[in-house]
């Protein structure tokens, strides 16, 4: 349910918007398969991200998989770099590289580490240490302003990540610099490694915090691709950066770990993998 405090424009009625049900299901399958690889993976925070990334790559951003560094592209920075397998899976589905590349995940000497590697087409920055993406995004947004381009920069952050002070340092700079081409997205799944964010280091009232820093705030259901599309496609508000707080479920799609702290990282055995894929298949049919 949307609790947006700013009226969202209706951008979802056009016929060009792709149905994302099949794409998000395939992304989740890739994530499960990677988590069944030799190293396992950050399953919970990758599953919560799926609709956010799919909406950005399939409905919102201007990107060309054939020219991943095109100067006209919209930019995505996965500041919560531990969602790396979610990004790899999405880039694969978006056509940046073939599915065979994903089989390299976690292999000794392979390029696909848990955190994004810029050797992969479409990966902008090597994130993973939390609290870096927003400052990087400021750099992209300043460059875009100097270029007098209307290109947008999206920075996807985790909610636990917002406990890093550098996020708020950058949030203040972005608002002061009036970077209205900068859009932050918070994957608000409410969990971090040791418990709920409200138990460990409370973030609420999260929307008010961002508003107090000078940001326009949208709050949406982070698994509703239409709500995400509206918020992420909204026309910039002149002089203010935008944050989309996307309320999500950690481990979404896998009932055995959904909304559980243990979903943070998992190495799935073969039986667990088959159970997970069966759960996804059931979800796909429903």
């Amino acid at each position, binding site marked *: 349910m949307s609790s947006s405090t700013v009226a969202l424009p209706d951008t979802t009625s056009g016929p060009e918007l792709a149905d994302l049900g099949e794409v998000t299901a395939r992304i989740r399958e890739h994530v499960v398969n990677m988590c069944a690889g030799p190293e396992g993976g950050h399953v919970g925070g990758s599953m919560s991200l799926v609709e956010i990334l799919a909406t950005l790559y399939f409905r919102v951003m201007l990107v060309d998989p054939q020219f991943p560094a095109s*100067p006209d592209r919209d930019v995505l920075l996965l500041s919560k770099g531990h969602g790396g397998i979610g990004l790899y899976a999405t880039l694969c589905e978006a056509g940046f590289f073939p599915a065979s590349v994903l089989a390299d995940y976690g292999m000794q000497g392979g390029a696909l580490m848990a955190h994004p590697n*810029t050797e992969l087409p479409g990966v*902008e*920055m*090597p994130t*993973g*240490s939390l*609290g*870096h993406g*927003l*400052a*990087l*995004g*400021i*750099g*992209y*947004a*300043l*460059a*875009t302003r*100097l*270029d007098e381009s209307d290109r947008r920069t999206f920075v996807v952050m985790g909610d636990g990540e917002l406990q890093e002070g*550098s996020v708020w*340092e*950058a949030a*203040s*700079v972005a608002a*002061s*610099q009036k970077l209205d081409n900068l859009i932050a997205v918070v994957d608000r799944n409410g969990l971090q490694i040791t418990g709920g964010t409200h138990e460990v280091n409370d973030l609420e009232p999260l929307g008010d915090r961002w508003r107090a820093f000078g940001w326009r705030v949208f709050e949406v259901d982070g698994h509703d691709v239409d709500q995400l599309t509206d918020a992420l496609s909204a026309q910039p508000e002149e002089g203010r950066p935008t944050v989309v707080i996307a309320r999500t479920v950690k481990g979404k799609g896998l009932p055995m770990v959904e909304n559980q702290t243990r979903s943070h990282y998992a190495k799935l055995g073969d039986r667990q993998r088959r159970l997970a894929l069966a759960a996804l298949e059931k979800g796909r049919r429903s």
Partner: protein
Amino acid sequence: MTAAVKVLSSREVYRDIVAELLPRDERMICLDTDTGLFSGVDFGAAADRYVNIGIAEHTLMGAAAGLAKEGRLPFVNTMAAFACSRAVEAVKIDIAYNNLPVRIAATHSGVSAGHLGPTHHALEDLAVMRTLPNMTVIVPADAATTDSLVRQALALPGPVYLRLGRNATPDLPAGPPVKLGQAQVLRQGTDITIAACGSYPVLAAVEAAELLEAQGIEATVLHVHTVKPLDTATLAAAAGFTGTVITVEEHWRTGGFGAAVAEALTELLPVRVHRLGLPDRFVGVSGSQSYLLGRAGVTAAAIAERAKTSLRG
């Protein structure tokens, strides 16, 4: 009486170069952190490429990385103490890991912040920055070498750490042209090598060589302004000749220039390396840059004494 020409500090030389070049090169952008270094500078039509982001050093480095990734040539400045400690994770991951052409002007290096105290001293920055892959580390020793080295560094494809001072320091004696990546040979002798890094250390090394000459000891004096990549060839050639090297620097003895020299030379030849620098403690007293260096034994007399002691074996 003729009017004295004002000697500029290395940070003022840097400021003037940025002020000169920014309007001419559309790729350049200057990010500042409320330092006041650029107060009064008129960038004219290029004013949109000078951005004062406030007191936000992590954001400074991250934003510079984003700009560089997009083809811009960022020149960023903060105090060395903040560049090499508070912001170092962004320098490491966002700038060095991506091998991006960001020029980090780190002012108030060493103990040049003087009585501002240990919170504003940077005595670990060479150790930190030279450890980072892709980083070039430059320590200009006077106004002229700053001017030369900053301009030479413009074309480097990767990140650069420019270790700058706070106040003007005396000019170095005349020597061969300063070339990035090459030690400048200020004096050649057969008995001992003195390799120095930074303004007062190089001046002290030159003076020490004169003191030693009066006592019949001939010293080679190397002005080493590029700490990374280190000019191992020139250092090894001198060390091979004299057998003993004394390094002098405005940095903790741990991990800095002297350590870099020792690491490089001991892999190549049998050599004794004595490292003069600041001892392994915080400088917890008030004092000017030269006072604090004198107190720590970074002086011509101390260098000469160490040379004589070493040669006596």
